[in-house]
């Protein structure tokens, strides 16, 4: 019967999804458990910081600049209707620091560094490098996963901060240099309106949470990938899709918690 088959399919998918969430949670705690050795050999984390953080700089800077410029243009057009062009700096800064900086930087991080992490670990599995490491009495989670995990967590807030900073300059370039908004009002109103704890710190917390989510998803998908070309490509796709949805879902929850009542 088609109905019974459909119900069976839904049940199977649900069980599979719950099982994978459980496996990912176990994987996350195992990563935390084996993190000690990573900190004792900090050069491993530094190497991964280069691969995930430094190598993402270009895409973050370019994207931040354009997002800031668009915000400057759109913000000016909107604020002009109410005669509040001088508040352009506040609008650009709050938009970036609270929302766009953490979210867009995390989305870019997922597609650039997250997919690379998944593909690399998946291929290491397919070419038996992970099995070889286990046979050499070295735990792969300690040696491969934990350094990448901490590199992701450290680099994500820094990249988001850089994205916001560059975006503010993008907004400044369009608003002040190109359109002619008063420079003094642009910076002074921004300085007066942006609160360190309420705005900047909450943005940093968001990017930290997004960084954790993206890195755990990317590492788990790579570690759990079937050791075939198709398996690795599927895992890489899942990393980008799942991370992007997780970022947007977490953003709503965090925004509601941080700014919902204010």
């Amino acid at each position, binding site marked *: 019967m088609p109905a019974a088959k459909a119900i069976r399919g839904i049940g199977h998918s649900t069980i599979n999804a719950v099982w994978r969430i459980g496996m990912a949670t176990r994987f996350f705690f195992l990563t935390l458990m084996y993190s000690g050795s990573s900190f004792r050999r900090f050069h491993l984390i530094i190497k991964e910081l280069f691969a995930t953080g430094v190598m993402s700089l270009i895409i973050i800077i370019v994207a931040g600049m354009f997002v800031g410029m668009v915000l400057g243009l759109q913000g000016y057009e909107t604020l002009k209707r109410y005669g509040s062009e001088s508040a352009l700096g506040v609008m650009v800064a709050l938009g970036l620091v609270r929302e766009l900086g953490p979210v867009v930087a995390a989305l870019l991080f997922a597609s650039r560094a997250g997919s690379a992490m998944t593909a690399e670990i998946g291929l290491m599995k397919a070419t038996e*490098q992970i099995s070889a490491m*286990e046979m050499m*009495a070295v735990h792969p989670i300690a040696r491969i996963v934990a350094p990448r995990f901490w590199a992701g967590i450290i680099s994500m807030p820094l990249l988001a901060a850089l994205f916001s900073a560059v975006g503010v300059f993008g907004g400044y370039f369009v608003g002040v240099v190109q359109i002619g908004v008063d420079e003094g009002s642009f910076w002074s109103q921004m300085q007066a309106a942006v609160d360190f704890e309420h705005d900047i710190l909450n943005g940093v917390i968001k990017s930290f949470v997004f960084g954790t989510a993206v890195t755990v998803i990317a590492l788990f998908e790579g570690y759990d990938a079937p050791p075939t070309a198709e398996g690795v490509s599927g895992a890489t796709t899942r990393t980008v899709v799942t991370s992007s949805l997780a970022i947007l879902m977490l953003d709503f929850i965090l925004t509601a918690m941080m700014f919902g009542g204010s």
Partner: protein
Amino acid sequence: MSSSNLVEISDLNFTYDKRPVLQGINMVFPKGKLIAIMGLSGCGKTTLLRLIGGALKPTKGYVKVDGQIIHEMDQESLYGMRRKMGMLFQFGALFTDMSVYDNVAFQMREHTDLPEELIRDLVLMKLHAVGLRGTHNLMPSELSGGMARRVALARTVALDPMLIMYDEPFAGLDPISLTVVGDLIRRLSGALGATSIVVTHDIQESMKIVDYVYFMANGVIVAEGTPDEIRASDKDFVHQFVHGEMDGPVPFHYPGGNYRQDLNLQA
């Protein structure tokens, strides 16, 4: 367990997804001997190696290495045991993000507190033993298949293991590399005094170097003996395998339905 045997396998069974892979395997691997496990692809040879290395747990029976039952060991003890083992994977499994030097130095850095100067000397000695000292600055992607296998061999013996396992060491090698790798396996086993287990289906090369052979088919041992005994065997399976014949107990066709019915022809 006899003290002369480094590895003992008793009534070993392993089932994967309800499919029996190994059934009632009994083997012994005396210390210092080079022993081959041969058989067709998919007969359970690599699974057996993974059971010896503790990567899998048996459904029934046990594997004893150096007097200890592998599947009963906790992770710390198992890792302690693995430090005394080396395994050469089918295609080397070199770490692609590390140079040849760092690959060979990997275990020394992970498991010892040796100073870097001493590690350097040891790495160069290991690479020299496999004839590839000059490649220490290269990355694995710059090596040929045979060279990668030899570097992996140097990495396998980096900590002078008591047990060395080789998973299809001759697969995909050209004739010269094949002879070189075979010769290295023999010489390194002798020099280290290690017990070696070679899983292979390369009958010609392995028969030249091993002391004893176990033949496996469909998850059970079908024959065993010295290379001379194997060559002289009158068992159909062994004869077909050794001489690479089409006809014999190993069928050419995978079991399927009626051919005429599959082609929609009338009976």
